[in-house]
């Protein structure tokens, strides 16, 4: 059963079709939510609530649209909302570019050990970003959304998305610590 078939069945009231969608997308959704919230139980709660909201409002979902991007965008918005009221909100550093730098280095890591070390540093760097900036990183690099799609999803001008991403890139070189690329 593909997504559009599952949606059609869900609109016909077949709850079993919801299970299909949950089993198919929960893992990616939880990972997306975790990258933003940095909190596993909260990420699970957010994804659970997003599935339930989607079920409630399935009548308004356009079957012609792809389900996965729709659902993951909902998860991202739900994360933003959850973090606003969560005591665990962290925002120490605006430096989005550090994450990009680490991603770039992790991409060319030559050993699994080195890769794992970079991944730990990426997680740490992500935690120092504001939630909205984590959303930008997740949307651009994990969900692989275009700047135009991000602009629509976040309801911010395209220029702001460009500013967030380009500003980070210009700092990239300066932020590469000594010895980081000395392989």
């Amino acid at each position, binding site marked *: *059963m*593909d997504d*559009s078939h599952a949606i059609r069945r869900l*609109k*016909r*009231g*077949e*709850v*079993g079709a*919801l*299970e299909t969608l949950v089993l*198919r997308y*929960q*893992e990616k959704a*939880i990972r997306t939510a*975790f*990258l933003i919230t940095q909190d*596993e139980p909260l990420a*699970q709660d*957010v*994804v*659970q*609530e*997003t*599935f*339930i*909201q*989607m*079920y*409630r*409002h399935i*009548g*308004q979902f356009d079957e012609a649209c792809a389900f996965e991007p*729709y*659902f993951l965008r*909902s998860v991202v*918005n*739900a994360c*933003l*909302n959850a973090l606003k*009221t969560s005591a665990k909100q962290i925002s120490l550093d605006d430096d989005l570019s550090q994450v990009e730098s680490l*991603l770039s280095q*992790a*991409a*060319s*890591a030559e*050993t*699994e050990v080195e*890769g*794992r070390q970079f*991944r*730990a540093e*990426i*997680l740490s760097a992500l935690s120092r970003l504001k939630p909205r900036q984590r959303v930008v*990183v*997740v949307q651009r*690099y*994990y969900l692989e959304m275009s700047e135009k799609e991000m602009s629509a*999803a976040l*309801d911010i001008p395209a220029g702001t998305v460009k500013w967030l991403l380009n500003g980070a890139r210009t700092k990239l070189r300066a932020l590469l610590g000594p010895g980081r690329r000395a392989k």
Partner: protein
Amino acid sequence: MKQKSYREILDSVASDSLEGQADLWPRIAAQVERKSFMKTLRTRPLMAIVLALLILLALTGVAYAIGKSLGYIPGIGMVETSSLRVLAEQVSQTRDGVTVTVEKAILNADNALIVLKVEGLSHDKFVPLEPLNTCISTEELRFLSGGYVKSGSGTTKPLNGAMVFDTSVGGGFESSYTYTHIPSDAADATLFIPCIWGALSPGILPENWELPLHFVPAPPDAALTMMPVTEIAPSTNFQTATTVPNVESTPSSVVNTGSTKPITLTQVIEAGDSYILVGEDYPPAPSQSGDGQLVDWILTDGNGEKVDYQVPPADMDFGGRTMLADKKLWAVQVARGFAPPLHITHRYRYVFPVDSQDTYGFEFDAGANPQQDQVWNVNQEFQLAGHQVRLTTITADNTPVITGTPIGVAGYWFRFETDDPAVNSFTVSIDGYIPKKQQSTPNNFAEGDSLAGQLVEYLTYPELPTGKLKVIFSNLFLNGELRSWTMEWQP
């Protein structure tokens, strides 16, 4: 080491940090499920007797309205008046121009239905469309004991009877949600609303609403607060239409059982600004070797215009029956205000197997480690029993399987296209591997329908077949008659 994409790295960042694989389905299922009516019957013999009487009366075929002893509450089902508690009085709060009103609360022994209205939402802050809505937290009913229950199934709809939100205007919405496992003696509770559904961004609308609710035993006229149920004598006035695809020598795939009632309308529930129509369908049986497939329902008004409808949840009680358990039962909800009469059309496709042992096989290299969502653009044309089909893509559905749990999946999607309207479906198999499950989306729509010409087969396995695989297509089924039955209903 192979250069990894940023997506793969972030995926590993998350998976490194997450403890195993979560299965959210049991938690989600618990929130969307409702107490079964049969469970109510087992614990409430009085209700069983009343219902038996009701069924007896319905058999007379005479339309009548149910009296005060029973009423229908969406999400709860049919209830006895005597067991009910209701809201003592409406509760309303206004903050920053937004007004939340709890209009109605109906509680029986374990379930509650809360109806609330939210007004004063300006269009620049209120976007009632997913995924722009940022309010995802659900309401809670909190009790003095410190316990709470989260809202379960329900609906949200625009105010003033509209079926679709007008996003350029704003306004508000009305929602009806059920809560299960309510303390039977609860006289007071607080409805906690963490955020307003449809909020464009977090905090843009007032949040953390707390509305104190007081419940009292339902007065004798409580039936007035419920939706009257009208039983209708099954109609015998049908128009039947049959279309046959352009295929040579279509055999008869229908065995007429002599049924004079292929579809019936048996109940109409006056659900506020809409109607819930309930009935049964008995399409003539397919031939012994054939099969029958429900295609869809189409509703049109007296001017021939399509009427939008929604299907109530499959587990909603309709006099002890649910669509989940009873495949003959159907129900649709339509807004009032359509130009009468309403025409209800049920489309049903009969299919039949081709008398041929023809198969088509080809080799497909999935590689040693197919990734989740990995797509192979195959675009392979082939013929099966003389019918042309194109395999467009194969997609891996591969997340780690934990044996003995519903977690993980190992399977492949096969997507096909055909310009041949006769092709309905066929069997897909991978030589040497026994699938755990096979699901089909057949090509059963009428020519011209947007989904016509597309077929999907989905196979899952205990472990994903990898490497060079021999894929075999066989057992072609062709489309036979597309029958539709149209029934007329006058409110």
